[in-house]
């Protein structure tokens, strides 16, 4: 039986991170569907999901063969690199140093690129549209797969973390089917900030475990790490806002 105190951070991190990634993939698939119809969009999406499933089936069993401390160390370091990168960017966006991620703008840019291709050559445009959808699903999907493995593998929580990611897919698909336009009202930077905090906290935790550091309070130490990264991110954003004014 899995304890909720252990599973909840993994499930919520997988859910929130996947929500961000699936919204990004959905925007591009929707642009393809709007311009070239649902057939290439659906085929590209299905092909992307098939490649992803193949990667998971191929690499999944290998995880069980890696010694747990090596797995924790490798995943912890990757999580630190990934999570701190997200937190850094989210802090800079919160400070107004770099612009916010704009789903409407991405939708418009993707639509413009497909329209330009349509002007250049009519043939194989369905193919190009399908490839665009495939790439979006594959790229964002790889990030989802990494996050699920990263937050789930160290404690045997792959299934709960995977369910969190699937729930995020379901939420985005249902919301997308209802509004039928880019999900621009999702507070993406707030989500990215939160996910960056959680992934960085997991990163320190797993890296430490992999190095043989016995964290006081065991899994509860994750909460302290998350609180410290939240404080650090907010402090960084506040300092960046001031610096941007001083150096402007």
């Amino acid at each position, binding site marked *: 039986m899995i304890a909720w105190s252990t599973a909840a951070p993994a499930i919520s991190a997988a859910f929130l991170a996947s929500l961000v990634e699936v919204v990004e993939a959905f925007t591009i698939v929707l642009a393809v569907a709007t311009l070239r119809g649902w057939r290439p969009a659906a085929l590209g999406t299905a092909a992307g999901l098939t490649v992803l499933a193949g990667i998971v089936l191929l690499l999944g069993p290998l995880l069980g063969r890696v010694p747990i401390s090596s797995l924790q160390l490798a995943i912890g370091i990757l999580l*630190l690199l990934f999570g701190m990168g997200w937190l850094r960017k989210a802090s800079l966006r919160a400070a107004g140093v770099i612009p916010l991620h704009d789903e409407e703008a991405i939708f418009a840019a993707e639509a413009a690129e497909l329209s330009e291709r349509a002007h250049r050559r009519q043939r194989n445009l369905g193919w190009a549209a399908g490839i665009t959808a495939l790439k979006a699903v594959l790229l964002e999907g790889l990030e989802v797969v990494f996050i699920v493995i990263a937050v789930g593998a160290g404690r045997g929580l792959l299934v709960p973390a995977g369910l969190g990611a699937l729930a995020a897919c379901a939420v985005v698909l249902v919301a997308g089917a209802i509004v039928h336009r880019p999900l621009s009202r999702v507070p993406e930077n707030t989500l990215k900030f939160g996910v960056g905090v959680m992934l*960085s906290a997991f990163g320190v935790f797993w*890296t430490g475990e992999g*190095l043989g550091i016995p964290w006081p309070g065991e899994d509860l130490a994750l909460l302290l790490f998350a609180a410290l990264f939240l404080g650090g991110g907010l402090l960084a954003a506040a*300092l960046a806002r001031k610096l941007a004014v001083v*150096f402007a």
Partner: protein
Amino acid sequence: MMTMVKELATELIGMFFAEKRLAIAVLAIVAVAGSLVDFAGLNPLVGGAVLLFGCLILLIESVCRAARVGAS
């Protein structure tokens, strides 16, 4: 096909090394923490503290540096 594989590889590397300076500094902190735990004979929690607070300091420094460069 090759173009797409190259794009995928670039994206994958970018997931972890988008900000090279921060990534290298994080790897250095992990190496220092690991050395303290394995070779220095100190309490492992000292290595843990170096890892945790080192990462926090790196994060704040990286954001502030980007703000200075971005604003000037």
